[in-house]
């Protein structure tokens, strides 16, 4: 992975604090993500990892601090803006559109890339038709990439957990994001499913050059995949650095690795 250029920062989080009422979820967190890297965020449950992602893609609005994405600095942004600027994500507990087929879920991921208006779509002619077909091809490429052709037309609600996680990744990829936020993509997977998922993540990172922010509990995975690791603990920034540095960090060992996790 040393061949890729990880100098320019794509996302910089500066001194973010977030609290719900009295409960402080994030306490002045600052870190950055460089273009093309795989950046892991780890920490025990309730450390504020998911909240961090929610702040990044605009679902939570921090009380303090700013986020700089591709040079633009914001105190907060609407989820729609985040998405349209190229931030996509998957969710800790799957948030697929259960009533829709795999294909439709992934096509929905394309929605920002589609422009034709209601009337053309109602008539399903000209631009609307071609647009639909072009995006269908992109979606199909993703389906091939994730190797889920078989479940193309199946409603996702009925799919097994592992596959749903895959579809969700597919939906995120469909947006062709520059920054991909993965919230525990391997939670509750058996070892070989994890294998596959890790492979997909690396491929996404290398083939499409997508920058990835990854929340994961499985340390071995984290250590293998990550370029750099950020450690959170109850809203506080515990450590930040290369995997081996973090592994060596005493606080981290005490606070986190000491605790046996699932």
């Amino acid at each position, binding site marked *: 992975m040393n061949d890729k250029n990880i100098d320019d920062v794509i996302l910089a989080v500066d001194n973010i604090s977030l609290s719900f009422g009295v409960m402080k979820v994030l306490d002045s967190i600052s870190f950055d993500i460089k273009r093309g890297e795989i950046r892991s965020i780890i920490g025990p449950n309730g450390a504020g990892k*998911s909240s961090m992602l*929610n702040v990044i893609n605009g*679902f939570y609005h921090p009380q303090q601090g700013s986020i700089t994405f591709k040079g633009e600095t914001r105190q907060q942004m609407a989820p729609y803006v985040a998405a349209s600027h190229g931030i996509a994500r998957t*969710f*800790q507990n799957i*948030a697929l559109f259960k009533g829709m087929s795999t294909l439709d879920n992934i096509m929905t991921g394309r929605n920002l890339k589609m422009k034709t208006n209601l009337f053309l779509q109602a008539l399903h002619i000209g631009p609307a038709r071609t647009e639909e077909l072009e995006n269908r091809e992109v979606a199909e490429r993703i389906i091939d990439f994730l190797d889920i052709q078989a479940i193309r037309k199946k409603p996702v609600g009925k799919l097994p957990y592992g596959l749903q996680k895959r579809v969700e990744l597919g939906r995120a990829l469909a947006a062709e994001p520059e920054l991909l936020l993965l919230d525990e993509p391997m939670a509750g997977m058996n070892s070989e499913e994890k294998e596959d998922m890790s492979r997909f993540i690396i491929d996404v990172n290398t083939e499409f050059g997508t920058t990835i922010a990854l929340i994961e509990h499985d340390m071995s995975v984290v250590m293998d995949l990550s370029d750099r690791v950020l450690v959170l603990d109850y809203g506080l920034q515990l450590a930040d650095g290369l995997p081996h540095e973090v592994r060596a960090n005493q606080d981290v060992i005490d606070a986190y690795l000491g605790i046996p996790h699932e």
Partner: protein
Amino acid sequence: MTFFIEVVLSGLMAGVMYSLVALGFVLIFKASGIFNFAQGVMALFAALTLVGFMEKFGMPVWLAIAGTIGVMIALAWLIERLMLRHLVNQEPIILFMATIGLAYVLEGAGDILWGSDVKLLDIGIPQGASDWMLDTFDIYVEKLEVFAAVTAAILVVFLAVFFQKTRIGRALRAVADDHQAALSVGISLHTIWVIVWSVAGIVALVAGIMWGSKSGVQFSLSLIALKALPVLILGGFTSVPGAIIGGMIIGVGEKVAEVYLGPFVGGAIENWFAYMLALAFLLFRPQGLFGERIIERV
């Protein structure tokens, strides 16, 4: 000034009358997440049965009431048996639809059993204006509605105790949260549903008696459900006190609006005004005045 007081008072009273109907909705929604559209028809059905027992079988009031309560409980059991049981874990809208179907069945059944004529319901509840209020303060207060207010108060206290103190009550609250929890309390879901529908049935009977003695028992009784809905959203689907407070706010709101605003826009604004009022509240508290807060997370 006295007139304004009069308007507000009658608003409060009317509101309480709505609350009596709303209470039934709340109970069932609280314990099973079902929006029971049949509540209004249940009130009609209960009242019809009561009158039927008194007229057709010449029962004394207390016996007829007891009998009707029995019928409502049996009804609850049937509903659980034939309907709810088969619809467990369905989407709320499906259950809602089912209750509308139920409303139709009850409506037809009530008419076939007891006929569609207007029936007088007189179980000795005081009626007409309170002469004392009228003569001393020149304020018009309907005795029946005072009686209804008192009954409602008692009912609410009773329900509060029921929910807080009794084991079943706590179980019901638990079901509201999730079904597993309920089972853990050691009462089967089915029993709980039968109980809650029975209680709702009895509340419906009370509402039916009040409205029935007000206007005679007839089909239109079932339409009071529509008056209860704004109360419901205002107070929150899950709050017993909400139903009462909401009722009063709606009652006063619509009466004041009708009397002071109505004449300028042609009148009969009560109905939509109640809904608009509720809607306005919702925009500030989407879960109703007393409903549990909705927290969104991913």
